[in-house]
């Protein structure tokens, strides 16, 4: 177990470094124009050559790219990343976004896992009947909706036209938990809709696969009631792939992946910060957020592996 953890940790650090390197390459090399190109973008379209030159010197764009990357990584590990455009330290900006992002993710995660499992079980148990078909259609409609459009329409219908829910923005949990939940209900539901549909479909397939296994027939043959067979024998196995999915999706959203939902509802979370920085070509925050996002994905994939081993002794890591 210790060896497994050490190996995964080293792997995780390498992956995170590689991810930041790719982001660095995307923003320094791909846009073209060489070193002046980047300086030009930061200085603005109508900047004088002197200004571009001073920007270039100030942030070190005149150095070779590997030197720039090494300096960027050094700044990243010493918490000295500073935004090019707003001059704000990146770490404090990410910290400011974390409460909103975490609140959004945890609430939505609970909703989508609960309803995803419920929907999957109901449609598998009634497979082929009317309720199954209805659920299947609804799930597919849910999967097919662009999340930002759903958010936009919901916000218009329920918050702007009829003020049933407050209109956007994050309300701190510590100030008033009721207001906090009230402000987040719409974003939670919008983000969860997609996942509910998807998880329901996957779980339905898994249950239908498992239900025909020999051990399920044995359990029934020895006289267990059907509820017990479903919960203890069928679900226990069918849920394993759902756990993996949930771990990775949850980590993705926690790491700022819900950019669209955060932007549409103006939650000022980490994802929205990333989107704004990308539009400003502000490299340090993008590096910071990517590192932060990759951390959660890597961390949760290790967590999922450990949980897997706990559920299924055959795949215990060595």
């Amino acid at each position, binding site marked *: 177990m210790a060896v497994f953890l050490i190996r995964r940790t080293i792997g995780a650090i390498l992956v995170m470094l590689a991810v930041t390197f790719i982001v660095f390459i995307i923003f320094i090399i791909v846009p073209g124009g060489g070193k002046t190109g980047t300086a030009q973008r930061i200085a603005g379209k109508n900047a004088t050559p002197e200004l571009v030159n001073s920007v270039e010197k100030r942030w070190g764009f005149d150095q070779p790219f590997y030197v720039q990357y090494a300096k960027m990584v050094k700044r990243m590990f010493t918490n000295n990343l500073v935004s090019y455009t707003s001059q704000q330290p990146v770490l404090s900006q990410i910290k400011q976004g974390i409460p909103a992002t975490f609140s959004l993710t945890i609430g939505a995660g609970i909703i989508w896992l609960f309803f995803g499992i419920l929907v999957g079980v109901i449609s598998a148990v009634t497979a082929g009947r009317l309720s199954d078909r209805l659920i299947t259609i609804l799930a597919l409609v849910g999967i097919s909706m*662009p999340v930002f*459009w759903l958010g936009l329409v919901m916000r218009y219908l329920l918050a702007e036209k009829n003020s049933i829910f407050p209109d956007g923005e994050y309300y701190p949990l510590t100030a008033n938990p009721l207001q906090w939940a009230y402000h987040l209900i719409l974003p939670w539901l919008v983000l969860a809709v997609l996942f509910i549909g998807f998880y329901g479909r996957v779980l339905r397939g898994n249950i239908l696969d498992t239900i025909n296994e020999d051990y399920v027939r044995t359990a029934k043959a020895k006289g267990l009631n059907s509820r017990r067979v479903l919960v203890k024998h069928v679900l226990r196995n069918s849920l394993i792939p759902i756990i993996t999915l949930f771990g990775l999706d949850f980590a993705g959203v926690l790491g700022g992946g819900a950019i669209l939902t955060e932007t549409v509802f103006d939650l000022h979370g980490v994802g929205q910060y990333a989107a704004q920085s990308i539009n400003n*070509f502000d490299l340090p925050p993008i590096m910071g*957020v990517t590192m932060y996002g990759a951390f959660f994905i890597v961390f949760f994939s290790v967590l999922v592996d450990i949980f897997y081993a706990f559920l299924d002794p055959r795949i215990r890591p060595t």
Partner: protein
Amino acid sequence: MAQPATETEFTLDTAAELAAEESGAVIRGRSPWYLAWRRLRRNYVAFAFLGLFVLIVVACILAPLYAHHVARTGPNNTHVLDTITVDGKQIDVVSKGGVLGGKLVASTPVGPQWFAAGGKYVLGADQLGRDIAVRLLYGGRTSLIVGIVSSLICVVVATILALLAGFYGGWLDFVITRFFDLFYAFPVILLGIALGAALAINGIHLKLWLFSIKASSGNILIPTLVISYVLIPYVGRPLRGQVLSLRQKEFIEASISQGAGPLRIMFTELLPNVASSILVFFTLIIANNIVLEAALSFLGAGVQPPRASWGTLISDGQGLIVTRPWFAIMPGIAIVLTVLALNVFGDGLRDALDPRAKVKIEH
């Protein structure tokens, strides 16, 4: 609890069933493709949705006809100062804003006219007086082209990578799987907007061996390439797994012993065996990519204005959502219908061909 799933529409045709149908005649050999076709043929829902998709594609192809003969304007023609005649009255296409009776009034474009204005502005106008119905159709062309071409590129590249990794194994497999893993650690949207935004400014100037790719900043080739690239691991990883297990089968060994070269084995032995999965992936990836294109364009990192796409239309409509809600709702409905049609058909295709292919979705 109910009986183990007995789904009426998707029953697998067993040899016994086939024999019974042919009433004692000699049992003919059926190819797996034919059997899949038989299963698909019974799935009327899937076919109905395929019809819907074809309808949408045809409507978008016929966009110029609509623009010339019904709306009499192009997708990018602005009519800020024009007027239209509705019931004998003259109405500004974009009402003039300013101070009116001591109050500040914003300028608003006309809403949906349906057919009151003789085919003009059926769905209203945008801030620049452009006909939304025309832009919706032309935007559909952009979205569909980007979605289909990017899926094609994605599936082709992923298949080649999967074949190489699965067939050769060893260090090549190691490098390719690490490449896939790396992109799993990236939120898809983040990678997409990073690439899209970076490339949107200066365009692409790539020279790869004999090929040189050149695309200036407004070209739809840029979002197409970005989108195709982003989802490669999601197709490549499961395909590699399939190739890896097929590689151990006897027919590959037989082929090697007959002296077949690597290319021959990869493309005439392995490829036909994963073709059904590829087809399913292709359908579902188009659906996925249309949504991804809309998301990137909505965030300003995809299709660039003035070119219309369903994503940019939603983004344009966002500013007018209080006064002209249909402007933002309409392109969204177009996306939902198209993607739903592809998802339902893809689902039917998967049930018929390969029950195990799964595609990841977007946040």
